[in-house]
Protein backbone atom coordinates (compact mmCIF):
# COMPACT_ATOMS: atom_id res chain seq x y z
CA UNK A 1 0.00 0.00 0.00
CA UNK A 2 1.39 3.31 -1.11
CA UNK A 3 0.53 6.45 0.86
CA UNK A 4 2.47 8.98 -1.16
CA UNK A 5 -0.45 10.18 -3.27
CA UNK A 6 -2.07 13.13 -1.55
CA UNK A 7 -1.41 16.57 -0.20
CA UNK A 8 1.69 17.29 1.90
CA UNK A 9 1.55 19.36 5.08
CA UNK A 10 2.55 22.98 5.28
CA UNK A 11 5.42 23.00 7.77
CA UNK A 12 5.26 25.91 10.20
CA UNK A 13 7.33 27.27 13.08
CA UNK A 14 5.09 25.32 15.43
CA UNK A 15 5.11 22.04 13.49
CA UNK A 16 8.62 21.88 12.05
CA UNK A 17 9.98 19.78 14.92
CA UNK A 18 7.13 17.30 14.59
CA UNK A 19 7.58 16.76 10.86
CA UNK A 20 11.36 16.57 11.08
CA UNK A 21 11.10 13.89 13.77
CA UNK A 22 8.44 12.09 11.74
CA UNK A 23 11.05 11.59 9.05
CA UNK A 24 13.19 9.85 11.70
CA UNK A 25 10.33 7.64 12.85
CA UNK A 26 9.81 9.50 16.12
CA UNK A 27 6.54 10.96 17.44
CA UNK A 28 7.00 14.35 19.08
CA UNK A 29 4.47 16.17 21.22
CA UNK A 30 4.94 19.20 23.47
CA UNK A 31 5.80 18.68 27.12
CA UNK A 32 5.15 21.40 29.66
CA UNK A 33 8.04 22.22 31.99
CA UNK A 34 5.66 23.64 34.56
CA UNK A 35 3.09 20.84 34.89
CA UNK A 36 4.53 18.01 32.75
CA UNK A 37 1.34 17.73 30.67
CA UNK A 38 1.63 16.63 27.05
CA UNK A 39 -0.11 18.67 24.38
CA UNK A 40 -0.80 17.94 20.73
CA UNK A 41 -0.81 19.41 18.13
CA UNK A 42 2.11 21.71 19.02
CA UNK A 43 1.03 25.28 19.71
CA UNK A 44 3.93 26.53 21.81
CA UNK A 45 1.72 26.63 24.89
CA UNK A 46 0.53 24.08 27.41
CA UNK A 47 -3.14 23.29 26.95
CA UNK A 48 -3.44 22.35 30.64
CA UNK A 49 -1.80 25.21 32.55
CA UNK A 50 -1.18 27.64 29.64
CA UNK A 51 2.53 27.91 30.43
CA UNK A 52 4.61 28.98 27.45
CA UNK A 53 7.51 26.92 28.75
CA UNK A 54 7.05 23.87 26.55
CA UNK A 55 9.48 21.75 24.58
CA UNK A 56 9.20 18.90 22.08
CA UNK A 57 9.46 15.46 23.63
CA UNK A 58 9.28 12.05 22.03
CA UNK A 59 6.56 9.74 23.22
CA UNK A 60 6.84 5.98 22.98
CA UNK A 61 4.86 2.99 24.04
CA UNK A 62 1.65 1.45 22.89
CA UNK A 63 -1.27 3.29 21.41
CA UNK A 64 -4.88 2.28 21.30
CA UNK A 65 -7.36 2.82 18.51
CA UNK A 66 -10.10 5.20 19.71
CA UNK A 67 -11.87 4.83 16.41
CA UNK A 68 -11.25 4.23 12.73
CA UNK A 69 -12.59 4.25 9.23
CA UNK A 70 -11.76 2.23 6.14
CA UNK A 71 -11.74 4.43 3.08
CA UNK A 72 -12.87 2.95 -0.23
CA UNK A 73 -13.18 6.12 -2.30
CA UNK A 74 -10.43 7.16 -4.72
CA UNK A 75 -10.43 10.88 -3.91
CA UNK A 76 -7.43 11.65 -6.11
CA UNK A 77 -6.01 10.00 -9.21
CA UNK A 78 -3.64 7.21 -8.26
CA UNK A 79 -4.79 6.97 -4.67
CA UNK A 80 -4.55 3.34 -3.54
CA UNK A 81 -7.61 2.06 -1.69
CA UNK A 82 -8.86 0.70 0.61
CA UNK A 83 -6.91 1.91 3.60
CA UNK A 84 -7.65 2.29 7.29
CA UNK A 85 -7.33 5.61 9.08
CA UNK A 86 -7.13 5.46 12.85
CA UNK A 87 -7.48 7.91 15.72
CA UNK A 88 -4.91 6.71 18.23
CA UNK A 89 -4.66 7.57 21.92
CA UNK A 90 -1.89 6.63 24.31
CA UNK A 91 -2.58 5.15 27.75
CA UNK A 92 0.68 6.59 29.07
CA UNK A 93 0.16 10.04 27.55
CA UNK A 94 -3.30 11.36 28.28
CA UNK A 95 -4.33 14.31 26.15
CA UNK A 96 -2.52 13.12 23.04
CA UNK A 97 -4.46 11.80 20.06
CA UNK A 98 -2.89 11.33 16.62
CA UNK A 99 -4.61 10.61 13.30
CA UNK A 100 -2.77 8.30 10.97
CA UNK A 101 -2.85 5.33 8.69
CA UNK A 102 -2.80 1.73 9.90
CA UNK A 103 -0.54 -1.10 8.72
CA UNK A 104 0.06 -4.62 9.93
CA UNK A 105 -3.36 -6.07 9.30
CA UNK A 106 -5.94 -5.97 6.50
CA UNK A 107 -7.89 -2.72 6.88
CA UNK A 108 -11.20 -4.50 7.39
CA UNK A 109 -9.76 -6.35 10.41
CA UNK A 110 -8.96 -3.18 12.32
CA UNK A 111 -11.22 -2.66 15.32
CA UNK A 112 -11.76 -0.12 18.04
CA UNK A 113 -9.56 -0.82 21.05
CA UNK A 114 -6.83 -2.53 19.06
CA UNK A 115 -3.28 -1.94 20.34
CA UNK A 116 -0.85 -0.35 17.91
CA UNK A 117 2.79 0.65 17.80
CA UNK A 118 3.94 4.09 16.76
CA UNK A 119 5.25 4.26 13.23
CA UNK A 120 5.59 6.39 10.13
CA UNK A 121 5.70 5.79 6.39
CA UNK A 122 6.45 7.85 3.30
CA UNK A 123 3.61 10.24 2.56
CA UNK A 124 2.85 12.98 0.06
CA UNK A 125 5.59 15.36 -0.98
CA UNK A 126 8.37 13.26 0.53
CA UNK A 127 7.02 13.91 4.01
CA UNK A 128 6.75 10.98 6.45
CA UNK A 129 3.26 10.62 7.91
CA UNK A 130 1.97 8.81 11.00
CA UNK A 131 1.32 5.17 10.11
CA UNK A 132 0.57 2.97 13.09
CA UNK A 133 1.29 -0.74 13.16
CA UNK A 134 -1.30 -3.19 14.46
CA UNK A 135 0.29 -5.20 17.26
CA UNK A 136 -2.28 -7.63 18.55
CA UNK A 137 -4.58 -9.96 16.65
CA UNK A 138 -7.75 -8.51 15.28
CA UNK A 139 -10.82 -9.00 17.40
CA UNK A 140 -9.52 -7.20 20.47
CA UNK A 141 -12.45 -5.16 21.60
CA UNK A 142 -12.48 -1.93 23.52
CA UNK A 143 -12.28 -2.90 27.19
CA UNK A 144 -14.19 0.19 28.21
CA UNK A 145 -17.86 -0.42 28.97
CA UNK A 146 -20.55 1.09 26.85
CA UNK A 147 -21.37 4.38 28.42
CA UNK A 148 -24.53 4.98 30.33
CA UNK A 149 -26.97 7.66 29.18
CA UNK A 150 -25.97 11.09 30.41
CA UNK A 151 -28.53 13.44 31.85
CA UNK A 152 -29.87 16.17 29.60
CA UNK A 153 -30.56 19.75 30.63
CA UNK A 154 -33.62 19.88 32.82
CA UNK A 155 -36.81 19.70 30.88
CA UNK A 156 -35.09 19.15 27.57
CA UNK A 157 -36.32 15.61 27.10
CA UNK A 158 -39.03 15.00 24.64
CA UNK A 159 -42.27 14.29 26.43
CA UNK A 160 -45.07 12.24 25.00
CA UNK A 161 -47.81 14.49 23.83
CA UNK A 162 -51.01 14.30 25.80
Amino acid sequence: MDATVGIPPAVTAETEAFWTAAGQGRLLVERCSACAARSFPPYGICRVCRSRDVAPVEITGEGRIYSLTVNHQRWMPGLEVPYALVLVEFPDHPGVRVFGRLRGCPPQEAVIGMTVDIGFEPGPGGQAIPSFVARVPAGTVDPRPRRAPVSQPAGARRQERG
Partner: protein
Amino acid sequence: MGTELLERRAVISGVGQSEIGRQIDRSGFQLTLDAVLAAIADAGLTVDDIDGLAMFPGGGKANLPGYANGNLYEIQDALRMTTRWRQGIVEGMCLPFYGPAMAVATGEARHVVIWRTVKEGSAARNAGGRPAYGSTNPVAEGPLAWLLPVGALSPVLQIAPYAARYQHEYGVTREQLGWIPVTQRAHAALNPDAVYRTPLSLDDYLAARMISTPICLYDCDVPADGATAIVISAADTAAGLRAPVSIEAMAGVVDGRPSWEQWEDMGRVGYATAAAMWNRTQLRPADVDVAQLYDGFTIEVVWWLEAMGFCEPGEAGAFVEGGQRIALDGELPLNTWGGQLSGGRLHAAFGHVAEAVRQLRGEAGARQVAGAQVAAVTSVGGYEAGAALLTAWSG
Protein backbone atom coordinates in the same frame (compact mmCIF):
# COMPACT_ATOMS: atom_id res chain seq x y z
CA MET B 1 -33.93 34.42 32.30
CA GLY B 2 -32.29 37.58 33.43
CA THR B 3 -30.66 38.52 30.15
CA GLU B 4 -32.59 40.11 27.35
CA LEU B 5 -33.18 37.77 24.44
CA LEU B 6 -31.95 39.90 21.56
CA GLU B 7 -33.12 37.38 18.98
CA ARG B 8 -36.71 38.32 19.87
CA ARG B 9 -36.02 41.72 18.30
CA ALA B 10 -35.40 40.05 14.95
CA VAL B 11 -37.65 38.13 12.56
CA ILE B 12 -37.06 36.08 9.46
CA SER B 13 -38.98 38.01 6.86
CA GLY B 14 -38.07 36.37 3.57
CA VAL B 15 -36.56 33.29 1.97
CA GLY B 16 -35.73 32.85 -1.68
CA GLN B 17 -33.99 30.28 -3.81
CA SER B 18 -32.71 29.99 -7.32
CA GLU B 19 -33.33 26.92 -9.40
CA ILE B 20 -31.70 23.98 -7.58
CA GLY B 21 -30.30 20.88 -9.23
CA ARG B 22 -27.34 18.59 -9.68
CA GLN B 23 -25.95 20.92 -12.33
CA ILE B 24 -27.42 24.30 -13.31
CA ASP B 25 -25.82 25.84 -16.36
CA ARG B 26 -25.81 29.40 -15.05
CA SER B 27 -23.17 31.36 -13.17
CA GLY B 28 -23.10 31.49 -9.41
CA PHE B 29 -23.51 35.25 -9.65
CA GLN B 30 -26.81 34.91 -11.52
CA LEU B 31 -28.03 32.23 -9.11
CA THR B 32 -27.19 34.58 -6.23
CA LEU B 33 -29.14 37.42 -7.82
CA ASP B 34 -32.09 35.08 -8.38
CA ALA B 35 -32.17 34.06 -4.72
CA VAL B 36 -31.56 37.52 -3.27
CA LEU B 37 -34.29 39.14 -5.35
CA ALA B 38 -36.70 36.29 -4.62
CA ALA B 39 -36.08 36.56 -0.87
CA ILE B 40 -36.59 40.32 -0.86
CA ALA B 41 -39.88 39.96 -2.75
CA ASP B 42 -40.91 37.10 -0.46
CA ALA B 43 -40.47 39.44 2.51
CA GLY B 44 -42.75 42.02 0.93
CA LEU B 45 -39.84 44.43 0.63
CA THR B 46 -37.97 46.16 -2.18
CA VAL B 47 -34.24 46.30 -2.80
CA ASP B 48 -34.21 49.85 -1.49
CA ASP B 49 -35.40 48.60 1.91
CA ILE B 50 -32.31 46.42 2.35
CA ASP B 51 -29.46 48.04 4.28
CA GLY B 52 -27.36 45.03 5.21
CA LEU B 53 -25.67 42.30 3.17
CA ALA B 54 -23.97 39.13 4.32
CA MET B 55 -22.77 35.91 2.80
CA PHE B 56 -21.37 32.65 4.03
CA PRO B 57 -18.59 31.94 3.68
CA GLY B 58 -16.70 35.12 2.98
CA GLY B 59 -13.07 35.98 2.59
CA GLY B 60 -10.76 33.67 0.74
CA LYS B 61 -13.15 30.75 1.05
CA ALA B 62 -16.01 32.47 -0.79
CA ASN B 63 -15.03 31.04 -4.14
CA LEU B 64 -13.30 27.74 -3.58
CA PRO B 65 -14.23 25.11 -6.18
CA GLY B 66 -17.99 24.67 -5.96
CA TYR B 67 -18.35 27.66 -3.70
CA ALA B 68 -20.03 30.34 -5.78
CA ASN B 69 -21.06 33.18 -3.48
CA GLY B 70 -19.37 35.76 -5.65
CA ASN B 71 -18.19 39.03 -4.20
CA LEU B 72 -20.38 40.88 -1.72
CA TYR B 73 -19.49 44.30 -3.10
CA GLU B 74 -20.28 43.26 -6.66
CA ILE B 75 -23.72 42.12 -5.53
CA GLN B 76 -24.23 45.45 -3.75
CA ASP B 77 -23.03 47.33 -6.82
CA ALA B 78 -25.18 45.31 -9.20
CA LEU B 79 -28.25 45.99 -7.07
CA ARG B 80 -27.36 49.69 -6.66
CA MET B 81 -27.67 49.62 -2.89
CA THR B 82 -26.46 51.45 0.18
CA THR B 83 -25.49 49.23 3.12
CA ARG B 84 -24.93 50.05 6.76
CA TRP B 85 -23.83 46.54 7.76
CA ARG B 86 -21.89 43.84 5.92
CA GLN B 87 -20.48 40.48 6.89
CA GLY B 88 -18.67 37.66 5.15
CA ILE B 89 -17.41 35.05 7.55
CA VAL B 90 -16.28 31.51 8.01
CA GLU B 91 -15.71 31.19 11.73
CA GLY B 92 -18.75 31.79 13.88
CA MET B 93 -21.30 30.71 11.29
CA CYS B 94 -23.38 28.62 13.67
CA LEU B 95 -26.64 29.61 11.95
CA PRO B 96 -27.24 31.58 8.74
CA PHE B 97 -29.23 34.26 10.51
CA TYR B 98 -27.23 34.58 13.74
CA GLY B 99 -25.09 37.57 12.74
CA PRO B 100 -27.82 39.34 10.76
CA ALA B 101 -30.24 38.88 13.69
CA MET B 102 -27.74 40.58 15.99
CA ALA B 103 -27.32 43.38 13.46
CA VAL B 104 -31.02 44.19 13.28
CA ALA B 105 -31.55 43.58 17.00
CA THR B 106 -28.94 46.19 17.88
CA GLY B 107 -30.15 48.68 15.29
CA GLU B 108 -27.10 48.44 13.06
CA ALA B 109 -29.40 47.62 10.18
CA ARG B 110 -33.12 47.17 9.53
CA HIS B 111 -33.25 44.51 6.84
CA VAL B 112 -30.30 42.21 6.09
CA VAL B 113 -30.00 39.69 3.26
CA ILE B 114 -27.65 36.75 3.69
CA TRP B 115 -26.97 34.21 0.97
CA ARG B 116 -25.15 30.99 0.22
CA THR B 117 -24.51 29.90 -3.35
CA VAL B 118 -23.07 26.53 -4.28
CA LYS B 119 -22.03 24.97 -7.54
CA GLU B 120 -20.62 21.84 -5.95
CA GLY B 121 -22.61 19.65 -8.32
CA SER B 122 -20.89 21.24 -11.29
CA ALA B 123 -17.54 21.17 -9.50
CA ALA B 124 -17.87 17.43 -8.86
CA ARG B 125 -18.82 16.79 -12.48
CA ASN B 126 -15.93 18.88 -13.73
CA ALA B 127 -13.50 17.03 -11.48
CA GLY B 128 -14.76 13.65 -12.66
CA GLY B 129 -16.16 12.88 -9.22
CA ARG B 130 -16.36 14.45 -5.80
CA PRO B 131 -12.95 16.09 -5.49
CA ALA B 132 -10.66 15.70 -2.54
CA TYR B 133 -11.10 18.38 0.07
CA GLY B 134 -8.43 21.01 -0.36
CA SER B 135 -7.08 19.27 -3.43
CA THR B 136 -6.59 22.57 -5.20
CA ASN B 137 -4.06 23.66 -2.58
CA PRO B 138 -0.43 22.63 -3.00
CA VAL B 139 -0.01 22.02 0.73
CA ALA B 140 -2.35 21.43 3.67
CA GLU B 141 -2.42 24.54 5.84
CA GLY B 142 -3.37 24.92 9.50
CA PRO B 143 -5.57 22.17 10.89
CA LEU B 144 -5.72 20.46 7.49
CA ALA B 145 -2.05 19.53 7.99
CA TRP B 146 -3.18 16.78 10.40
CA LEU B 147 -5.89 15.50 8.05
CA LEU B 148 -5.03 15.62 4.35
CA PRO B 149 -1.45 14.25 4.41
CA VAL B 150 -2.47 11.03 6.20
CA GLY B 151 -5.25 10.47 3.68
CA ALA B 152 -8.30 12.04 5.31
CA LEU B 153 -9.04 13.71 2.00
CA SER B 154 -12.73 14.45 2.56
CA PRO B 155 -15.06 15.44 5.39
CA VAL B 156 -16.43 11.90 5.00
CA LEU B 157 -13.17 10.51 6.38
CA GLN B 158 -13.10 13.10 9.13
CA ILE B 159 -16.53 12.27 10.51
CA ALA B 160 -16.50 8.53 9.78
CA PRO B 161 -14.39 7.53 12.82
CA TYR B 162 -16.84 9.32 15.10
CA ALA B 163 -19.77 7.58 13.43
CA ALA B 164 -17.98 4.27 13.96
CA ARG B 165 -17.33 5.11 17.60
CA TYR B 166 -20.97 6.05 18.15
CA GLN B 167 -22.14 2.77 16.65
CA HIS B 168 -19.57 0.89 18.74
CA GLU B 169 -20.69 2.46 21.99
CA TYR B 170 -24.43 2.22 21.49
CA GLY B 171 -24.85 -0.75 19.20
CA VAL B 172 -26.86 1.31 16.74
CA THR B 173 -27.13 -0.45 13.38
CA ARG B 174 -27.12 0.61 9.75
CA GLU B 175 -30.52 -1.05 9.45
CA GLN B 176 -31.80 1.53 11.92
CA LEU B 177 -29.96 4.58 10.64
CA GLY B 178 -30.96 3.90 7.05
CA TRP B 179 -34.47 5.05 7.89
CA ILE B 180 -33.22 8.63 7.99
CA PRO B 181 -32.20 8.89 4.30
CA VAL B 182 -35.10 6.62 3.29
CA THR B 183 -37.70 8.76 5.04
CA GLN B 184 -36.15 12.00 3.87
CA ARG B 185 -36.29 10.72 0.28
CA ALA B 186 -40.02 10.17 0.71
CA HIS B 187 -40.30 13.79 1.79
CA ALA B 188 -38.20 14.94 -1.16
CA ALA B 189 -40.68 13.22 -3.49
CA LEU B 190 -43.16 15.91 -2.39
CA ASN B 191 -40.70 18.75 -2.95
CA PRO B 192 -40.48 19.81 -6.61
CA ASP B 193 -37.18 21.58 -5.91
CA ALA B 194 -35.42 18.55 -4.41
CA VAL B 195 -32.48 17.10 -6.32
CA TYR B 196 -33.39 13.41 -5.84
CA ARG B 197 -37.10 12.51 -5.76
CA THR B 198 -37.25 8.87 -6.83
CA PRO B 199 -38.06 6.41 -4.03
CA LEU B 200 -35.21 5.00 -1.95
CA SER B 201 -35.76 1.73 -0.07
CA LEU B 202 -33.95 0.41 2.96
CA ASP B 203 -32.60 -2.37 0.73
CA ASP B 204 -31.21 0.27 -1.64
CA TYR B 205 -29.52 1.90 1.33
CA LEU B 206 -28.02 -1.32 2.67
CA ALA B 207 -26.74 -2.27 -0.80
CA ALA B 208 -25.07 1.08 -1.46
CA ARG B 209 -21.32 1.18 -1.79
CA MET B 210 -19.23 2.23 1.16
CA ILE B 211 -17.45 5.55 0.86
CA SER B 212 -15.58 5.21 4.13
CA THR B 213 -16.90 2.84 6.80
CA PRO B 214 -19.48 3.09 8.25
CA ILE B 215 -20.62 5.84 5.87
CA CYS B 216 -22.16 4.71 2.60
CA LEU B 217 -23.17 6.70 -0.46
CA TYR B 218 -26.67 7.48 0.86
CA ASP B 219 -25.29 8.74 4.17
CA CYS B 220 -23.67 11.64 2.31
CA ASP B 221 -25.48 14.73 1.17
CA VAL B 222 -25.77 15.51 -2.53
CA PRO B 223 -23.43 18.02 -4.16
CA ALA B 224 -25.73 20.51 -5.87
CA ASP B 225 -25.97 23.83 -7.66
CA GLY B 226 -28.20 26.54 -6.29
CA ALA B 227 -28.49 29.66 -4.17
CA THR B 228 -30.51 30.38 -1.04
CA ALA B 229 -31.07 33.83 0.45
CA ILE B 230 -32.68 34.76 3.74
CA VAL B 231 -33.91 38.19 4.80
CA ILE B 232 -33.71 39.12 8.48
CA SER B 233 -35.64 42.17 9.62
CA ALA B 234 -36.03 44.15 12.81
CA ALA B 235 -39.15 42.91 14.59
CA ASP B 236 -40.55 46.41 14.80
CA THR B 237 -40.87 46.48 11.01
CA ALA B 238 -43.22 43.50 11.07
CA ALA B 239 -46.31 45.49 10.12
CA GLY B 240 -44.76 46.12 6.72
CA LEU B 241 -43.71 42.52 6.09
CA ARG B 242 -45.65 39.92 4.13
CA ALA B 243 -45.23 36.90 6.40
CA PRO B 244 -42.60 37.14 9.14
CA VAL B 245 -41.51 34.23 11.32
CA SER B 246 -40.36 34.69 14.91
CA ILE B 247 -36.96 33.69 16.26
CA GLU B 248 -37.81 32.22 19.65
CA ALA B 249 -34.28 31.26 20.67
CA MET B 250 -30.89 30.64 19.15
CA ALA B 251 -27.44 29.60 20.32
CA GLY B 252 -24.09 28.38 19.09
CA VAL B 253 -21.53 26.95 21.51
CA VAL B 254 -18.15 25.42 20.70
CA ASP B 255 -17.10 23.62 23.85
CA GLY B 256 -14.99 20.61 22.88
CA ARG B 257 -11.65 20.78 21.13
CA PRO B 258 -12.55 22.55 17.85
CA SER B 259 -10.74 20.10 15.63
CA TRP B 260 -11.90 17.25 13.43
CA GLU B 261 -9.43 14.78 14.87
CA GLN B 262 -8.98 16.12 18.41
CA TRP B 263 -12.65 16.53 19.40
CA GLU B 264 -13.08 14.29 22.43
CA ASP B 265 -16.40 12.84 21.27
CA MET B 266 -18.03 14.37 18.23
CA GLY B 267 -21.24 12.54 19.06
CA ARG B 268 -21.70 15.22 21.70
CA VAL B 269 -21.10 18.12 19.35
CA GLY B 270 -24.56 19.69 19.71
CA TYR B 271 -25.15 19.16 23.41
CA ALA B 272 -23.88 22.47 24.77
CA THR B 273 -25.50 24.37 21.93
CA ALA B 274 -28.88 22.71 22.49
CA ALA B 275 -28.68 23.29 26.23
CA ALA B 276 -27.91 26.96 25.70
CA MET B 277 -30.81 27.29 23.29
CA TRP B 278 -33.34 25.57 25.59
CA ASN B 279 -32.22 27.94 28.35
CA ARG B 280 -33.55 30.83 26.28
CA THR B 281 -37.13 29.62 25.91
CA GLN B 282 -40.03 28.17 27.82
CA LEU B 283 -40.72 25.81 24.94
CA ARG B 284 -39.68 22.18 25.33
CA PRO B 285 -38.76 19.47 22.81
CA ALA B 286 -42.32 18.14 22.93
CA ASP B 287 -43.52 21.49 21.59
CA VAL B 288 -41.59 21.12 18.33
CA ASP B 289 -43.86 20.41 15.36
CA VAL B 290 -41.21 20.06 12.67
CA ALA B 291 -37.44 19.51 12.84
CA GLN B 292 -34.95 20.61 10.20
CA LEU B 293 -31.75 19.03 11.51
CA TYR B 294 -28.50 19.47 9.63
CA ASP B 295 -27.68 16.43 7.56
CA GLY B 296 -24.37 16.73 5.81
CA PHE B 297 -24.25 13.08 6.87
CA THR B 298 -26.89 10.77 8.34
CA ILE B 299 -24.93 10.54 11.57
CA GLU B 300 -25.27 14.29 12.16
CA VAL B 301 -29.05 13.90 12.28
CA VAL B 302 -28.59 11.12 14.82
CA TRP B 303 -26.49 13.33 17.03
CA TRP B 304 -28.88 16.27 16.76
CA LEU B 305 -31.89 14.12 17.66
CA GLU B 306 -30.11 13.24 20.89
CA ALA B 307 -28.50 16.62 21.59
CA MET B 308 -31.82 18.43 21.17
CA GLY B 309 -33.54 16.05 23.56
CA PHE B 310 -35.91 14.51 21.04
CA CYS B 311 -34.67 11.16 22.34
CA GLU B 312 -32.15 9.91 24.89
CA PRO B 313 -28.44 9.55 24.13
CA GLY B 314 -27.89 6.34 22.23
CA GLU B 315 -31.56 5.94 21.36
CA ALA B 316 -31.74 7.73 18.04
CA GLY B 317 -31.46 4.43 16.18
CA ALA B 318 -34.55 3.10 17.88
CA PHE B 319 -36.25 6.47 17.48
CA VAL B 320 -35.91 6.55 13.69
CA GLU B 321 -36.35 2.81 13.07
CA GLY B 322 -39.29 2.15 10.77
CA GLY B 323 -39.49 5.83 9.91
CA GLN B 324 -42.93 6.45 11.44
CA ARG B 325 -41.85 8.94 14.08
CA ILE B 326 -39.97 11.12 11.59
CA ALA B 327 -42.52 10.97 8.74
CA LEU B 328 -44.69 13.94 7.80
CA ASP B 329 -47.53 12.60 9.94
CA GLY B 330 -45.24 11.38 12.71
CA GLU B 331 -44.35 12.64 16.12
CA LEU B 332 -41.38 14.65 14.80
CA PRO B 333 -41.50 15.32 11.03
CA LEU B 334 -37.85 15.46 10.03
CA ASN B 335 -36.19 17.36 7.19
CA THR B 336 -39.48 17.76 5.37
CA TRP B 337 -37.87 19.15 2.19
CA GLY B 338 -35.70 16.04 1.84
CA GLY B 339 -32.79 17.54 3.72
CA GLN B 340 -29.39 17.84 2.14
CA LEU B 341 -29.35 14.05 1.66
CA SER B 342 -32.02 14.36 -1.04
CA GLY B 343 -32.72 18.07 -1.43
CA GLY B 344 -29.13 19.02 -2.13
CA ARG B 345 -26.16 20.29 -0.20
CA LEU B 346 -27.24 23.92 0.05
CA HIS B 347 -24.88 24.04 3.03
CA ALA B 348 -24.79 25.70 6.42
CA ALA B 349 -28.50 25.04 7.08
CA PHE B 350 -29.68 27.56 4.49
CA GLY B 351 -32.02 24.95 3.04
CA HIS B 352 -33.16 23.91 6.50
CA VAL B 353 -34.01 27.50 7.46
CA ALA B 354 -35.89 28.10 4.21
CA GLU B 355 -37.98 24.99 4.82
CA ALA B 356 -38.70 25.87 8.45
CA VAL B 357 -39.99 29.28 7.38
CA ARG B 358 -42.24 27.74 4.70
CA GLN B 359 -43.63 25.20 7.15
CA LEU B 360 -44.42 27.83 9.77
CA ARG B 361 -46.18 29.98 7.17
CA GLY B 362 -48.21 27.05 5.85
CA GLU B 363 -46.53 27.48 2.45
CA ALA B 364 -44.86 24.07 2.14
CA GLY B 365 -47.28 22.66 -0.43
CA ALA B 366 -47.72 18.90 -0.62
CA ARG B 367 -45.26 18.35 2.23
CA GLN B 368 -46.93 20.79 4.63
CA VAL B 369 -47.14 19.58 8.22
CA ALA B 370 -50.61 20.58 9.32
CA GLY B 371 -50.67 23.32 11.90
CA ALA B 372 -46.90 23.64 12.32
CA GLN B 373 -46.28 26.33 14.93
CA VAL B 374 -42.77 25.54 16.22
CA ALA B 375 -39.77 24.53 14.10
CA ALA B 376 -36.34 23.43 15.28
CA VAL B 377 -33.39 24.23 13.03
CA THR B 378 -29.85 23.05 13.59
CA SER B 379 -26.57 23.40 11.78
CA VAL B 380 -23.23 21.76 12.24
CA GLY B 381 -19.91 21.69 10.49
CA GLY B 382 -17.62 19.45 12.46
CA TYR B 383 -17.31 21.30 15.75
CA GLU B 384 -19.23 24.47 14.81
CA ALA B 385 -22.82 23.99 15.93
CA GLY B 386 -25.94 26.13 15.98
CA ALA B 387 -29.53 25.56 17.03
CA ALA B 388 -32.67 27.67 16.93
CA LEU B 389 -36.38 27.51 17.50
CA LEU B 390 -38.56 29.41 15.08
CA THR B 391 -42.25 30.01 15.68
CA ALA B 392 -45.20 31.06 13.58
CA TRP B 393 -45.90 34.79 13.74
CA SER B 394 -48.42 35.75 16.37
CA GLY B 395 -48.18 39.52 16.03
